[in-house]
């Protein structure tokens, strides 16, 4: 170790294999000092300008921001904040083309400068030695510093490394042609850079700090030597000019003779490399409190009138940089971000400067010719000689072309730094680096997919397991259920039965409709003598027995009082009547029975009939509950039964009318509300219609089964109608409720819309099915041509209708939503 440090101090360098010597083209841009540009009209600050995650946005559109104010807040996972480069108004926050070969949009904050350039409150540190390690790292983190050499690796991560660092290497090589940003920075701000180096030394405490500078920058070497004079642990090492000595791994090899193993990072062998620009930014952040909001950018190329370096605010559009430096574009002008070797052609010049933008190159066609057509590889192996990573570019090329990714991995494709040296020397102009980049992207994608597939498999398996478990649990529950039922549930059932009994026992007045139903039933059963539920009938019979006894007594009393003349006869008649009434009661309540019993003897009959009728009435009362009023108005004559039925019908009609009225009233109030109501009402009406239809069907069925008595049918129909009306009313009420709340909550409108959509879908599906079935019909019954012919056009028409209905429903839903939005 001591020996190594001695060797380094003596100025020894360890050349890396390969490398090329492209023309430097640096003198054009080093003649002038770093210029300051006028404020641009707008700044497009991309939220992601580094490797790692975005910070969390903490500003909003329309907000006034001050220069240096943080726009995002870091939230772990290598996230680094970005800051407002100048004071002004945030005019928009939206995805904008990013500084990437694809120019894929990246969320950006667009700031319109107010021209004041007001700084926010800065917290400079005067005595950095007093800061703890964590505090210093936090300052670097919050200042948004990321590697400014090109990769954009978050500096705070490097500064906070837990590994022992032996050598801090300062990358001031700047090996790529044209770029002079670091060179000029060193010439002008060597002190600031050294201060930054010392802060890093405080954080990492390396044994030695080596500043590597290529020998084509004598001014920078002198300036740095001057600035670092006071610090013995800093060595300025001059390295020969060769591309790509500025590569991290190449520089480590060059300055220390050590190689970073494949797949590991420099920190693994006790090395840490920082760019001079980054170190200057660290110095600015700590001693002046200024976050990273500007950087030096070389604007060069033959189409630029004033070639040189500028301080560019992050987010300044490339167009502004070019315009300020006098840009006279040639036809089919290319603008390259980065150097000619590793840079990329920008798809548009309306891209903001980012933390890693070190050069904007606008070459004319002579200095940077368009690549010619790719020719066949002649296996000259010049690429292998030039490769600084000791790879076999030619082999990699073949494998990349044939997509043999396993072989590519075997040949260490991922150690390729994409420096472009191989393509530079290739006599066949094969875009080798492009092939490698595509292959790398493919491999990465495959790996990501593999990981995703693995996770999907895990989730699928977990779900399967869960479903199985749930099913098992359900089965277990079923097994346990009967035991539980024996105690609790049975008790509940018994209770419920008892309650039902109690309810049916008391005969308080129910609705007229119910009475009508009861009577209709009685009449029907009386005529047809159809015993239905035998148990219920028995129960009823028992109750009737009791009622009968009571009635008998009463009638006897009456008879004793009023009809004293004919004791025996009346008794006989009463007995007959009783017997008949009993029969009637057994066959469930009946009035018709009484009618049959009536015409034996005039007087007797009158009494008996009265008794019988009363009994029948009572029986009906006990069974299905009849109003007392009706019992009071119980007729003397048997014709009155018909009257009663009529009354009942009238009542039913009345009820129906009332329902209708109500419906109408509801309907009246409905149109007042908005269109939502209309939709809902339509649904309700449809429902009502359906219900009515169902009722009608029922009625028809009843009519079919019992066509003997028209009146009964009429009653039943009336009942059905009443029911339908009631249903309609209920639906309307529901609708009403919906309507009431609908305007308040646009969610309900959404619900209604969803229902409409669901219905539309269902309709469409049914249609499709019926279509299919009709088609099947078509297929199967070739002999019978008439039917399918009739069916098909209809169904297609229906299909169309369904589609139209669906469209309408969707449109309505949309409208509703809009209205809801308007209201809210």
């Amino acid at each position: 170790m001591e020996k190594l440090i001695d060797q380094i101090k003596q100025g020894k360098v360890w050349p890396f294999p390969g490398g090329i010597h492209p023309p430097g083209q640096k003198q054009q841009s080093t003649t002038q000092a770093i210029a300051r540009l006028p404020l641009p009209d707008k700044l497009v600050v991309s939220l992601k300008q580094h490797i790692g995650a975005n910070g969390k946005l903490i500003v909003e559109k329309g907000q006034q921001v001050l220069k240096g104010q943080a726009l995002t807040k870091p939230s772990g996972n290598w996230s680094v904040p970005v800051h407002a480069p100048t004071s002004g108004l945030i005019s928009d926050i939206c995805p904008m083309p990013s500084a990437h070969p694809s120019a894929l949009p990246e969320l950006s904050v667009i700031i319109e400068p107010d021209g004041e350039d007001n700084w926010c409150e800065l917290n400079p540190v005067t005595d950095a030695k007093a800061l703890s390690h964590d505090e210093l790292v936090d300052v670097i983190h919050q200042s948004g510093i990321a590697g400014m050499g090109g990769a954009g690796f978050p500096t705070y991560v490097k500064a906070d490394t837990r590994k022992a660092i032996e050598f801090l290497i300062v990358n001031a090589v700047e090996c790529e042609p044209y770029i002079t940003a670091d060179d000029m920075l060193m010439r002008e701000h060597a002190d600031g850079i050294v201060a930054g180096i010392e802060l890093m030394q405080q954080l990492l405490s390396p044994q030695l700090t080596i500043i590597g500078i290529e020998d084509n920058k004598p001014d920078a070497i002198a300036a740095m030597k001057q600035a670092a004079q006071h610090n013995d642990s800093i060595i300025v090492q001059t390295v020969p000019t060769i591309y790509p000595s500025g590569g991290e791994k190449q520089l480590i090899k060059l300055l220390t003779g050590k190689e970073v193993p494949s797949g590991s990072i420099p920190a693994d062998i006790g090395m840490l490399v920082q760019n001079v620009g980054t170190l200057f930014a660290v110095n600015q952040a700590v001693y002046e409190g200024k976050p990273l909001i500007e950087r030096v950018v070389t604007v060069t190329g033959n189409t630029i009138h004033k070639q040189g370096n500028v301080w560019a605010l992050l987010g300044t559009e490339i167009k502004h940089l070019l315009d300020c430096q006098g840009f006279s574009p040639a036809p089919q002008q290319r603008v390259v971000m980065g150097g000619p070797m590793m840079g990329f052609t920008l798809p548009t010049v309306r891209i903001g400067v980012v933390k890693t933008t070190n050069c904007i190159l606008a070459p004319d066609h002579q200095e940077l010719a368009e690549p010619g057509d790719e020719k066949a590889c002649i296996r000259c192996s010049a690429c292998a000689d030039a490769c600084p990573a000791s790879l076999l570019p030619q082999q990699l090329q073949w494998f990349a072309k044939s997509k043999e990714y396993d072989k590519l991995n075997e040949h260490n494709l991922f150690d390729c730094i994409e420096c472009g040296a191989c393509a530079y020397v290739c006599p066949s102009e094969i875009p080798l680096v492009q092939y490698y980049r595509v292959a790398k992207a493919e491999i990465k994608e495959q790996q990501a997919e593999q990981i995703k597939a693995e996770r999907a498999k895990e989730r699928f398996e977990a779900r399967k397991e869960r479903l199985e478990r749930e099913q098992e649990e359900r089965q277990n529950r079923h097994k346990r259920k009967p035991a539980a039922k024996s105690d609790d549930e049975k008790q509940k059932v018994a209770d419920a039965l008892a309650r039902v009994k109690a309810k049916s026992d008391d005969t308080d007045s129910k609705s007229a409709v119910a009475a009508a139903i009861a009577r209709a039933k009685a009449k029907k059963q009386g005529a047809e003598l159809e015993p239905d539920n035998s148990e219920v009938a028995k129960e009823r019979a028992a109750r009737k027995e009791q009622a009968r006894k009571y009635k008998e007594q009463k009638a006897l009393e009456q008879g004793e009082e009023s009809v004293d003349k004919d004791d025996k006869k009346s008794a006989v008649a009463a007995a007959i009547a009783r017997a008949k009434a009993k029969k009637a009661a057994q066959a469930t309540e009946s009035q018709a029975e009484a009618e049959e019993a009536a015409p034996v003897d005039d007087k007797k009959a009158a009494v008996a009939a009265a008794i019988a009728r009363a009994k029948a009435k009572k029986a009906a009362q006990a069974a299905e509950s009849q109003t007392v009023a009706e019992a009071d108005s119980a007729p003397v004559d048997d014709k009155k039964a018909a009257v009663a039925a009529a009354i009942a019908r009238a009542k039913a009609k009345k009820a129906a009318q009332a329902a209708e009225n109500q419906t109408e009233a509801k309907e009246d109030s409905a149109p007042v509300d908005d269109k939502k109501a209309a939709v809902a009402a339509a649904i309700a009406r449809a429902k009502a219609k359906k219900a009515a239809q169902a009722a009608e069907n029922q009625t028809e069925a009843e009519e079919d089964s019992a066509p003997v008595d028209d009146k009964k049918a009429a009653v039943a129909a009336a009942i059905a109608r009443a029911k339908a009306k009631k249903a309609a009313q209920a639906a309307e009420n529901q609708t009403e409720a919906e309507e009431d709340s609908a305007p308040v909550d646009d969610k309900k409108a959404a619900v209604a819309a969803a229902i409409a959509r669901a219905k539309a879908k269902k309709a469409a599906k049914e249609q499709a099915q019926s279509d299919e079935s009709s088609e099947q019909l078509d297929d199967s019954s070739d002999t019978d041509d008439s039917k399918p012919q009739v069916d098909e056009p209809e169904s297609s028409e229906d299909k169309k209708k369904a589609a139209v209905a669906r469209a309408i429903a969707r449109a309505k839903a949309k409208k509703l939503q809009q209205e809801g939005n308007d209201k809210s």
Partner: protein
Amino acid sequence: MTLFYALIALGSLALIFGLILGFAAVRFRVESNPIVDQIDTILPQTQCGQCGYPGCRPYAEAIANGDEINKCPPGGEATVKKLADLMGVEAKPLAGGEQAEPIKTVAYIREDECIGCTKCIQACPVDAIVGATRQMHTVLIDECTGCDLCVEPCPVDCIDMLPVKETKQTWKWQLNAIPVTQVD
């Protein structure tokens, strides 16, 4: 006598080898057919059921038992090729005439139209949909395999299968592409 010795010698040899074989059968026992696992890792694990089997592993088992290797549309030609290499059979074009390079899609729920019926949740083979009854549902895009199984059960047709958005990480250099410049 010689015959007797020969019988003993051969018998004992047979016994020894039998014991060795029996031991090996127990000691080096293979739990399941390893080919099924290999096939399963090649399959894309979308669990979409487009092959006619309830998931990727059942299909892997079916392939191991001699089923066709070209029934996996989400895997595309690449999967068929890999399976052909593994199984030592001829690679075939995809059954059903699907395109060779399937476009990767993920499900998106139009959330304002979702009625919260949970039907898609029950359909999702990888539990990538979250939501509760009468609550809005949403898809965990990172977990979605793009299997389409949730689209059909939706009563209000509010699920869209959208192609996966290209990001800077997934973007690839287009070789032989005509360079496009945006004109300002």
